[in-house]
């Protein structure tokens, strides 16, 4: 039973990680990255480590995604709707430099 629950959570985490890698909207990628931390929190509870689960929920899911989102805001990348070509051009420029 618990193995199946863990399997589902790990699959959700993997989907979140893939979305964080592949999403073109950076704000959505940040949210997807916080999904990974949220799944990890549940796994820590299953592993009987409530302390680590608390830290993961507060720091991993809350604070780090907040800092990433505020960083996006400072860089002017906080956009809910991004035309895909603009982001790709930005990414290529970043890759070259």
């Amino acid at each position, binding site marked *: 039973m618990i193995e199946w629950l863990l399997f589902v959570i790990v699959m959700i985490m993997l989907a979140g990680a893939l979305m964080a*890698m592949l999403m073109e909207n950076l704000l959505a990628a940040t949210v997807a990255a916080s999904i990974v931390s949220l799944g990890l929190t549940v796994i820590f509870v*299953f592993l009987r480590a*409530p*302390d680590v689960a*608390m*830290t993961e929920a*507060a720091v991993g899911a809350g604070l780090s995604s907040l*800092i990433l989102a*505020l960083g996006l*805001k400072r860089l002017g990348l906080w956009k809910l709707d991004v035309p895909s070509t603009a982001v790709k051009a930005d990414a290529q420029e970043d890759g070259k430099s």
Partner: protein
Amino acid sequence: MHQFSSFLFLGGFLFFLSVLTGILPLGDPPMIIGQAIQNHGVSETGAANLVTAVVLGYRGIDTLGELSILFAAATAGGLVLATGKKKTQASADEDAGFIVKTAAELLFPLLVVAGLYIVIHGHLTPGGGFQGGVILAAAFFLPLLAKPSTTMNHNTMSLVEGFSGAAFIGIGLIGLFNHGAFLQPLLSKGVVGELFSAGTLPLLYLAVGLKVGAELAGLLANLNEEDDENV
């Protein structure tokens, strides 16, 4: 090419994880020192939460190192982010919507109570200064998220941070002078499981919680405030 190598790394990492989970039984750590701490930790430190007994009792100076790393990171962040100029009222962001504002007002007291509970009961229940401190930082950042025109008082934050850090080191120094070891647990251990027990460990965790909360709230406020230079 770059994406292909990322996927290759992901596949290898998955294989590694599956091998690891195949060998280890779930939740059964292969350790010896854990048994020793479980046998003697509660009677030696008086803390019902063994993690706190390790973090502040047996490894207090490591916690001080952790605090100084966090302090250095927050100071460097503030140095880079805070340019010193005040944000003009004209360029301030508009207030957030009704949902965010109401939720911020509703959640602020609840988050403060939850954070303080986790900090103060760090020696009894899971959690402690670091976790509760992050929750406190989030609580004090919420009003800024709802109303970006308000600013946080950085001097107060620095005062709280400095005094709590000094309190941690001060308690350690009292232990050094009275009992010959830095961060030696002082005061009576009391009854295990009561709020006033475990000697100085709750005081140390209170200092840690206030320091972490003030530091991270200041860092978040710095990140949020100074975003008008590229406009």
